[in-house]
Each structure stands twice: as C-alpha cells, then as structure tokens.
C-alpha cells in the first residue's frame, strides 16, 4: 500500500511583484518550475524567498503578476482551493488532534471517509516511516517525528504541488542530514513538483534539481547545484554558496593578472579592466618548490592553519596582501608535512576551477 503518483504540474510565475512600503519583497519575479522538479529557493533572511512561497500558497496577495499551476491561472484563488500540500517551518500540527486525525484532516475535507481514509492515512504513515503512530498525541512526538507527521499530512491527499518552508531548520544536524536524503527519496517516489525554501546552502545543494538564489526580492541565479557552485553569476552567489576566496584581477592586454601573475581562466571573461577571481578552497593545491605545470600558480605566505577534524583550512596571504584559503583532506601524513606559519608556499589551481566574476565594487 503506497500513495499513488499523480500527474505533476509545472508552475509559472510572471512579473510577480509585492511591496511593503518602500521594501520590494518581490521585484517582478519570473520563474518556470518544471513539472515534477525539486526546486529550492535559497537566500538569506529577508531576501523574499518566504514571501514567494507564501504567494504560491496563497497566504500573501501579490500587488501584480501572474501565477499558473499547469494551465490554470491561480493568482486570485484562495489558499483552500489551491490543492497544494505545505510543510510549515514549525510543522503547524493541530495540537487537539492525534496523529491519525491530523493526517486525515485534508481527506475529511475532500469527503474521503471510512476505509479509504484509513487506508490512505496508513499509507502516508508508512511512507514517512511512522507506521503504528496513529493514536499518538502530538505532544508525545519528538521534533523529527513531528516533521514526518507534517510531511505525511501534506502528501496524503496526493497534491499536485508540495511546498516546504524550511522544514528541517528546527532539527539537530544529524537528523537534518538524514531527513534531507529521505525527503529527496520521497520526492523521487511521489514525483510531485516540489518547492523548498531554505537559507542553508548545503541543504539546497544536497536536495535540489535546481536552485533559485533569491536576493533583494529577485532571483539572481537559477541553475543546477553544480553550475551554481562552479559558475556563479556574481559575487553574491559566489559568497553565499560554499566557501570562497575572492581576489581582485586586472586586465593586462590579453591576459588577466592576479597579484602580478598571469592567470588562465575558464568561462567568459567579464568586460572592463578589472574583475574578481573566485577560488574554492578545496580546489586550491599546495605545491612544492617545483611543479605546477599547466596550473595557475600564486606565491603566498602562510598566515594560519586551522584543524577541523575531517579537513584542515590553510590561510595564506598573497604578495599584494589579499587573503586566500586552501582546504585539504586531513590525513596524518598530510597534517605532519604542512608548512609552518609564515612559511613561503606556492598555491596552484587548474584553469577549469578559475572563474572570473564581474567586479561590482
């Protein structure tokens, strides 16, 4: 007994705008969510990602714009007629009902009763691995269990679209990471179009088919996790996702120079005489006195080494004083042979990992 799949629908947003006084919570947002896709809205707090989700759910009325589920325009449809499942940040489970009654609630509203209701509640509980918990009271559940009940309630009526508003933010790290995998598997099993809101970039990268990075009420980049990480569109995305060293580079004829060294880069070069070089710490290598053929090489001076268990972070300064970080796997042999603070080192990185971003400052 499992929950059936239902034909997923694409979601289309066109020119959605919402202002609170002078603040643009949504600034003419266009977005196409593919049918059956797991799309994450990622952004810092106040970026507008939650506003966007609330507009999708129908709890916030936009000032203008269009919102379509499949071919149906739903911009002015009240929330209770939208037929979308939603997992709230604080779960929003009904405290006066037991687990089974919570999950049966949307079924009752749809006139599904008796054996069919019971079958679906059981199936939903099984799907979230809480079989046998139907008679529990909500206050008898742990945070993780509540999260699962909220999820079961959101999928039991087989909605075309599922929305999740930072559903894992209240859980501790280990449980959160396990639930990330489970949510992802559940999505593959059900195939519903899913929109997930988070401010945790790692969570976004782990779970999503595509990630929309939101800032200042706009979608600043929409891409796959890998493209987002390796080819960020601008400094904001580069700094928000993953660790990064950002170094100034100057155009010198046909070549770009960083701290005086010529640099080979991948992707398109920005226009203008100055740009910003993005380096991911784990893609920078520590070179010996020799070697580094085919790599970009920068001489630097070690300023500190931080041991972090599974890895170490080496911080260094270039000749022009800019900071650069290097992350490596912490093996005993590697740790023992690390250079001492203030030692001169050579840092290398491949052309493919060398990304130039437009200089915005």
């Amino acid at each position, binding site marked *: 007994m499992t929950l059936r799949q239902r034909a997923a629908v694409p979601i289309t947003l066109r020119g959605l705008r919402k202002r609170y006084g002078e603040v643009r919570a949504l600034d003419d947002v266009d977005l196409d969510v593919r049918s059956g896709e797991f799309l994450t809205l990622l952004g810092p707090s106040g970026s507008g990602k939650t506003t966007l989700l609330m507009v999708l759910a129908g709890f916030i009325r936009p000032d203008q714009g269009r919102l379509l589920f499949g071919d149906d325009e739903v911009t002015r449809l009240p929330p*209770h007629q939208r037929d979308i499942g939603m997992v709230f940040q604080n779960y*929003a489970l009904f405290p*006066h009902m037991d687990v089974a009654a919570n999950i049966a609630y949307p079924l009752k*509203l*749809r006139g599904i009763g008796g054996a069919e209701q019971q079958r679906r509640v059981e199936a939903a509980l099984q799907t979230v691995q809480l079989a046998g918990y139907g008679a529990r009271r909500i206050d008898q559940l742990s945070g993780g269990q509540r999260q699962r009940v909220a999820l079961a309630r959101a999928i039991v009526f087989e909605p075309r679209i599922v929305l999740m508003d930072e559903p894992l933010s209240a859980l501790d790290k280990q449980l959160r990471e396990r639930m990330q995998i489970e949510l992802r598997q559940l999505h593959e099993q059900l195939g519903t179009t899913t929109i997930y809101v988070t401010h945790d970039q790692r969570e976004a990268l782990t779970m999503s088919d595509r990630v929309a990075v939101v800032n200042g009420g706009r979608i600043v980049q929409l891409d796959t996790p890998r493209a987002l990480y390796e080819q960020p569109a601008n400094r904001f995305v580069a700094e928000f996702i993953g660790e990064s060293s950002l170094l100034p580079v100057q155009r010198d004829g046909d070549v770009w120079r960083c701290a005086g060294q010529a640099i080979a880069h991948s992707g398109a070069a920005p226009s203008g005489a100055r740009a910003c070089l993005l380096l991911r710490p784990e893609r920078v290598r520590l070179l010996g006195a020799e070697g580094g053929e085919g790599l970009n090489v920068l001489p630097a001076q070690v300023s500190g080494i931080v041991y972090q268990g599974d890895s170490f972070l080496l911080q260094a300064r270039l000749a022009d004083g800019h900071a650069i970080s290097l992350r490596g796997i912490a093996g005993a042999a590697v740790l023992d042979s690390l250079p001492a603070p203030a030692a001169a080192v050579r840092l290398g990185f491949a052309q493919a990992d060398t990304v130039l971003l437009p200089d915005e400052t």
Partner: protein
Amino acid sequence: MHDDGPNAAGLKRDERRERLALLGLSAPALLLVFVTMVLPVGWLFALSFLADDATFSLEHYRRMLEQPSYGRTFVTTFKVSVFTTALCIGLGYPLAYALSQMSRRAAGLCLIAVLLPFWTSLLVRTYAWLVLLQRKGLINEWGIGLGWWDEPLALVHNLTGTLIGMVHIMLPFLVLPLLAAMRSIDADLLKAAANLGASPARAFRTVFLPLSLPGLLAGTLIVFILCLGFYVTPAVLGGGKVIMVSNHIANDIELFFNWGAASALGVVLLVLTLALLWAATRLLRLEQVLGGSHR
C-alpha cells in the same frame, strides 16, 4: 551509597536552611489567609449548626428545605447566573475573537474600552445603569423622543435590569482569559487548515474553536461562580424582585438578625461553588483526555 563525601553535611544543611527561609517568607501570607479566611468560614460553619439557645441543631438547614422562599432564592440565583453567563459568552466570544485578530495596538485600545469600567467602582457603575435604565432615564427618554416606543420600557427593578448590569460587570472576566487563549493559538495552524483545504468557516470550526475552548471554559467558570455570590447589582437594579442568595443572606441579618440562617445559606453557597469548581476541573481534564493536549 553513603552521603559522607566532601561537603555532604554542609550541602545538606544549606538545603535545609533554604527551605526554612522559603517557609519563613510565606508565613505572613499563610497567617493572613488563616485569620481572614479559615477562621471566619469556620465560625460561619459553626454558627449555622447552632440554634438560638446555642445548642447543636439542624433547624437552619431544615428551614431552608421547608420554606419555599429559600428554594425560590436558589432558583433565582441559578437562573440569573446562567443567563448572565450565557449572555457574556454570546457577547464575549465575538468580542475576544475580534480583539485577537486585531493588531496589538488596536486590540490594546479596544481592550481599554472593555477594562475602563472594570477599574471604576462597582457601585458607581451599578447606579450609572440605574440612571440610564429607569422609567425617566436616558434610554427611555431617547427611545420615546425618537419615537421608537411609546410607553417607558421596564428596564430596571426587575430581571432585565439585573442582567444588563451583571453582564456589563462580568464581561471582562470572560473576555480576558478567552483572549489569552485565543492569542496563544498559532496563526500557522489556521494557515495549515486553509492549505489543507478548509474554508475559513471550516477552519474556524475545526481548529480555532476547539483550541479556544479551554479559555472559554475558564472564563465561563469564573463568571458563573462570581454570579452565584453577587450582591450589589441585584440589590440595586433588581428592585427587591430579584432575590439572590447574597441578598437573602443580607435580609436574614439586617431584617431578622438571624445569623444562624444567614450562615447556613453561606455554607450551602460555598459548598455549591466548590462542587461546581470540582466538577469543572474534572470536565477540563476529561476534555484534555478526549481532545488531546492543548499545549
């Protein structure tokens, strides 16, 4: 295991001293309660079992059963209390709901309007109602002046007047606990209900109403119990026609100097109130068992 490790004796002594200090701090309050509550109630209790010649007797209780005026008093008391409570619920629930949905600021201003009379003397308010409601009072003058009715309405010196006055006085006691309960209802629960397909009316009925019930029960209980022992308003606005238990007690003492009869009435009122409280707490617990926890 023995408690003879380092500092064991000293730590135990500290704990004992702390407990003694707490006891010392609460002693004045306990004494006050004893002198002002336990002693008088005990004295009343004793008086109610004493005949005029100071011997033990059940005559005061027997009279209560035999004389129909006592029965009528209890019926009146019950009737007035039930009506007042019902009217308070009818007015107070929508009021508390409206307040709970307003912004904090607006709700605060409106709440002052509810509470302002609460801070003025009960006697003053009751006489104010007398001025408004009497035959030649403001309401009748205006009603006749505007041609809404021809003869002065009997708004006071009867059950109507008593109820108007009592509802006005009791309303805050219902609204305040109810409002507190409503404010503690997570707004996301109603959003969740809507998201799952509940129309606003359905969401109210299946989520908001059940979650506000504990507050409503608390308010109802407070109002009902306060009503049972109410004196001033029925005395002034009832015009001698609405005799509640308290008024009967006053009559027994002031007109007949019968302390025994008055004490017996007081004891019965106290027992009824305690029984009601006990029943209500049982009901509340039952509610929690049936409906799951509210917190």
